[in-house]
């Protein structure tokens, strides 16, 4: 295995999880003390505390003042070089994470620098994205590399393309990639819909990736290692992302019950959480991504 030189002592929370020779080294939580009232500067290594708030969470509004309730944690990112194919060079060094919960739902606000909005998929054209990785069960965290056989992870992925799907009502195909395109006769010009749609094979086959009419920009999956990503039959995650001033602000939210997925994210509990970021303009996709080490997520209980 290559040298995983990005392992950072102050960001590593848990020991003992090993996969393919890679050991997530480190021992205990190295919580960094922070000054009370200083919410503007994200603190590296601090646990991500999901502040309890009453009522609906600002899931579709990354700019909501409610987010000011939460402290930001700086999460270092490094190119994924544990499993082929590698991301060769880093395009972003960290993301800032905040969290809120109302007991029924957990929401995370994730922000990172990216001055190029990549929200269409084309030939050698990839999208911006972010993902949150949680174990399905409490205890020793699974392998950082999307879990392993018998130790699954629960992943919530937001993609800029899916956000544009929603914002545009599904206008995210050839006509948007090539605005000047002139079409010859297309199947839906001359065939009845049930026949014409057969020419969108992925969509017809039910591939969730091929649907451009969607209700959420966040996909909920489980995995037991790289390459085993499996779309969950019940999609309960919500979210919203926007790019403002060369910075992505993305909210990813999931019901804390996690019915059919894993153990509930109970009030007062602490969970390992890891993140991944993709920069479309740097040809990030799939395993070619930036990843964090396991962080610590604390869900505040309501009073």
């Amino acid at each position, binding site marked *: 295995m290559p040298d995983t030189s990005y392992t950072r002592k102050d960001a590593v929370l848990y020991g003992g999880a090993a996969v393919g020779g890679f050991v997530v080294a480190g021992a205990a939580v190295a919580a960094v003390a922070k000054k009370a009232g200083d919410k503007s500067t994200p603190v590296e290594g601090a646990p991500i505390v999901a502040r309890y708030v009453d009522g609906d969470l600002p899931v579709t509004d990354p700019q909501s003042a409610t987010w000011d309730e939460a402290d930001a944690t700086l999460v270092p990112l490094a190119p994924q070089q544990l499993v082929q194919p590698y991301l060769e060079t880093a395009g972003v060094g960290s993301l800032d994470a905040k969290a809120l919960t109302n007991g029924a739902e957990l929401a995370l606000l994730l922000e990172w620098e990216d001055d190029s909005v990549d929200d269409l998929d084309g030939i050698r054209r990839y999208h911006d994205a972010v993902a949150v990785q949680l174990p399905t069960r409490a205890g020793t965290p699974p392998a950082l590399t999307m879990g392993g056989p018998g130790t699954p992870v629960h992943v919530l992925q937001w993609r800029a393309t899916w956000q544009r799907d929603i914002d545009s009502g599904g206008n995210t195909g050839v006509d948007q990639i090539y605005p000047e395109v002139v*079409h010859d*006769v297309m199947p839906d010009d001359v065939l009845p819909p049930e026949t014409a749609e057969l*020419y*969108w094979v992925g969509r017809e086959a039910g591939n969730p*990736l*091929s649907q451009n009419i969607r209700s959420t920009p966040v996909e909920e999956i489980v995995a037991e290692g790289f*390459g085993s990503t499996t779309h969950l039959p019940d999609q309960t995650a919500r979210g919203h992302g926007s790019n403002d001033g060369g910075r992505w602000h993305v909210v990813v939210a999931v019901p804390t019950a996690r019915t059919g997925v894993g153990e509930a994210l109970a009030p007062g509990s602490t969970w390992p959480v890891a993140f991944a970021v993709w920069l479309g303009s740097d040809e990030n996709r799939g395993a070619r991504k930036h990843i964090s080490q396991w962080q610590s997520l604390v869900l505040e209980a309501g009073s």
Partner: protein
Amino acid sequence: MPQVPNWQLGRDMEYPYAADRPSKQFTMIMDTNKCIACQSCTIACKSTWTWGKGQEYMLWNNIETKPFGFYPMGWDVNILERLGQQTWADGVYEGQTIFEAAPEGERVLGWTPAEEDWSHPNIGEDEPTGNAEETTYIPEKPHALMWMYYLQRICNHCTYPACVAACPREAIYKRPEDGIVLVDQTRCRGYQECLSACPYKKTMFNLETRVSEKCIGCYPKIEEGLQTQCTTACIGRLRLTNFLSAPDEADPRKPADYLVHIRKLALPLYPQLGLEPNVYYIPPVHVPQKYLTQMFGPGVERAIRTYENAKDDPELLGLLMLFGATERIMDTWEVKDGVASAYDEKGEEIVAVPLREPTFVRPFEFATEVAGEPMTGYRHNT
């Protein structure tokens, strides 16, 4: 990494998965000498499979003029340049394959075409090499100064596909019943790793469904015992859809086995890349053999000699006459009494073709009757 046998290289090689040959292997034989680049095959494929929105640039089948035609641009010269100069010795490949030359962090030595590389399907069409002012009349053969020829391209349905090797999700698979390589449309997540890995550039990304697609070997036709659309649409009758056995199981009565293994007339495309591609080419007789050896491996000289002698070789000639004579897939064939016949798996005759069409000569003038009176007629050649 497992070692797998690659008969085209004459040696074992590294591949991410263990060898698992299908019970039958889809194959296509192309006689490059007969192609006129009419693109009937391309249109047959396009109008059958890829005329949907999001598939505009997809040509699962294309014909390109070599050496200056490419789709996508520079697909072969780019990977050859990345691989660097390699050597053959006595029919054994001593160089590295794209699996063996993979850089750290990659499963395959790949090359990713830019978007605009897919914008010129007809680039280089009919352009010969050399300068026109040097000569337009070339007495010697092969034509050292000016030449071009047409290369027919579909997915090679490789024994060791690079697209399969590179897909992190194992979303691409090789069918055990016929060796056709398919992208599972429900499993693909559109990472486009296959577009970088396939050296032949025959996987393509659908802009509407956001997953990759590729030549499906017309498998619904294959399952019915029929040859592919590109084969049956070919007006030059230069294609043969068939099944190929492993070399140690070659049966001389089977068309593809005979052409590839027995007579060694049809050769794989860039075998040195290590994929054991399953489309085989009868090389063009007029092209410098140095170029052809780079493209088809070390068997070029022998193949051209065999082809040039085909007119005096009734068995081979008969098989070549059966190309394009039937839509059905031939299981076996034979030549008897000047007639080439093809048979299905039950041994029943599918089609019979004479090696020489009979010729009838009528006299220029002939006798006839008009209103009961004898007359001498004159026949217009209409």
